[in-house]
């Protein structure tokens, strides 16, 4: 089982659409896949038409009153399941602190119960650096980091890498940044991409374009490649998935 966190300190960079579309592509290529919606906004749950509600909230989950297995919902797509969000996740750091002595290891502990059920697990992470983020970093094999091609995004990537370098135990964690919401008509975007890729060759080659069709996912309530498989953005997500799967 490979665990991927789709993560950024910044909000509004395309985390949820990337999580949903990549998970769909993983399942469509034949792998049993689970999306764990950790963002209290519950956008990934909404896109899969699943109510963002966990019985007993995050506390019941962390205290083991609700087995992970009982809370998972099948999506409309074969081999693709979802662990829905819950509004209580907004207080996840407090819940983690309260639940156990090793709060950073809680997600890892919970996931153990579904090892063998899935080939891939994708976390849709809330934007922040928090105790929950640390728990995600300890659990994931790789972090997929969407970057809008701008200086600010580059700065947040530097912040993340600096944070990971300072901590112990993240040595094996792969960080896979990729460009998201790219507008090729804007010189600022293309120049930034050229500059950042020259500095950081680990940034993946696939680029997710800024496209109205991606935004329409909220209306269609399904992954983009499911309703617009031949759209350029679907092709970009496919290229991204191939690159991610190949690098793991």
């Amino acid at each position, binding site marked *: 089982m490979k665990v991927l966190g789709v993560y950024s300190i910044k909000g509004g960079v395309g985390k949820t659409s990337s999580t949903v579309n990549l998970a769909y592509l993983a399942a469509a*290529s*034949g*792998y*049993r896949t689970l999306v764990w919606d950790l963002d209290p906004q519950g956008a990934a749950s909404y896109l899969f038409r699943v109510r963002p509600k966990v019985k007993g909230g995050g506390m019941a989950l962390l205290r083991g009153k609700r087995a992970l*297995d009982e809370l998972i*919902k*099948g999506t409309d797509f*074969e081999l693709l399941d979802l662990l829905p969000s819950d509004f209580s996740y907004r207080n996840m750091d407090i819940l983690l602190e309260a639940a156990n002595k090793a709060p950073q290891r809680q997600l890892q502990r919970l996931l153990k119960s579904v090892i063998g059920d899935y080939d891939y697990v994708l976390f849709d992470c809330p934007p922040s650096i928090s105790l929950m983020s640390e728990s995600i970093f300890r659990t994931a094999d790789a972090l997929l980091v969407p970057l809008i091609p701008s200086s600010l995004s580059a700065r947040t990537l530097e912040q993340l890498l600096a944070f990971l370098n300072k901590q112990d135990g993240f040595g094996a964690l792969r960080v896979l940044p990729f460009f998201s919401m790219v507008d090729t008509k804007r010189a600022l975007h293309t120049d930034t991409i050229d500059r950042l890729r020259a500095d950081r060759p680990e940034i993946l080659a696939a680029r997710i374009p800024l496209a109205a069709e991606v935004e329409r996912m909220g209306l269609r309530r399904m992954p983009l490649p499911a309703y617009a498989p031949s759209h350029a953005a679907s092709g970009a997500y496919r290229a991204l998935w191939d690159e991610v799967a190949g690098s793991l």
Partner: protein
Amino acid sequence: MTPSAKDYELPPTGDLDPEQQMDSVVAAIRNHLHCAAEPATATRRRFFDSFDWSLYLAGAALEEVTASERHELLWQDLADNAAVLARQAVDGEPGLVTGLPPGAVRERLAPVLGVRRLLPVVTLVGKHRVLRVLNEDEKTVVRILLERVRVLADGPLGDVVLPLRLRLLGVRGYLRELGRTERWLSKRLAMAPAHAPLFLSALAAAGRRPGSYSSKLNYRLDPGKRAEAATRTILLGLLDTLEANIDGTRRNLDPEFLHDLRVATRRTRSALGQIKGVLPQAIVDDFKTGFAWLQQVTGPVRDLDVYLLDFPRLKTSLPASLRDDLEPLKDWLLAHYEAEQRTLAGALGSERFAALLRDWRAFLEAPLRDGAHGAAQDAATPIKAVADKRIRRMFKRVRQEGRAITDASPPEDLHELRKSCKKLRYLMEFFQSLYPADDIKGMIKQIKVLLDNLGGFQDLAVQAEHLRETAAAMQGEGTATLDTLLSMGALIGQMLEQQEQARRDFARIFAGFDTDENATLFDRLFGADKRQPAAACA
């Protein structure tokens, strides 16, 4: 957990043809349940397995689905009513694992299939429709799959049309909706639970029995049975195995056909030589010659198979800087393979081979005649007595030969011991049903440990010599550079080193076999030798 799928059959209705029946069921469901119906799809489905049913025995089924825009493989879990665990798009005929593109199915298939080839075991054509039951968020909460299927069969009765099937697939986390749907369907439709997943129903309809081939020796012998009759049973089983593998060997479908054919031949020769005094000696001598010829003509391709299968390991055993230099050896092996395979196919297509098998079967199936002229002395002896005697004697021989080996013994002595061990192993395997299962299995396991050591010693010596001869041939043909010859030399060096290690390990491994405990167990299982009790010798 995702709820297990449930299969139902809907018996044909007199007034509707199958197409109309499917349409009427779809209409009934759509009238009552809020659902989305996907268009009917014509499909051709084939299930695959290896010749020895390795997938089925591992609890899996592999389905190939071909529809208008879809060609994919599905890996199904038979323990969970054929739940799909992995799928993968493909673009060609499924065959060897190495021919499949990387993907979810290949990852599951590789450890189960090994070097065997996927062969189609049953083909189905038909139509299917998927109805998705939706909740108020238009979310799929239950799937209903309707399947109209014709099983293509070569038998005299021709194709078989299966009753319309309804497969109810729950969505994880929506059990209440599943229960409601199932209750409604059961009330409204004349449907009955299907007895087996589609794969197994289709196999039964096509007259195929999964797991019907195995190269394992699994005879059920009656201890009081006349020795000649029991021996014929063993030999007929081996002949069936041998014959089952001829076609695959001739067509070179995968290396295991030839391997199983050769093992059946070797076992036949061993039975002829070791079950003494039971079959008429003239017959034994005649067929021993015939099967020795078969073993000899099948040898060269097997040797090449062994090299080619082992090539990746041999290559990686070399230092990285020498690995690429070994590639011309693989090219040479492949270049010679085709000619050797042609010679082998020719031998298996020859009148000599056909006559050998024909005459052998005729002899084995001929009626037994009490006191017939030329009958061997133990023909009518109970098989248990013959088995006890033969195993006892061979055990004694193995022990004597093994004890005589010292650090100064020549390799030939170890080779002789290996031959005796093989004979002992085959005898115990032929007759294992005559003895308590746990005891005999334990003894066979021990002899296998000894054989692995002796085999390692002998095979490595043969391989090293063969590699040296190949290097000389390649040099003569000008197909090997100096670097290639040097990399082959490095391999030979490794083999000889491993051989020496096997030689050093022998004394310890033989001592583990030649124990008082084993001797006592042998006495108990096969009876003590009247002149020299086994335990007393140890």
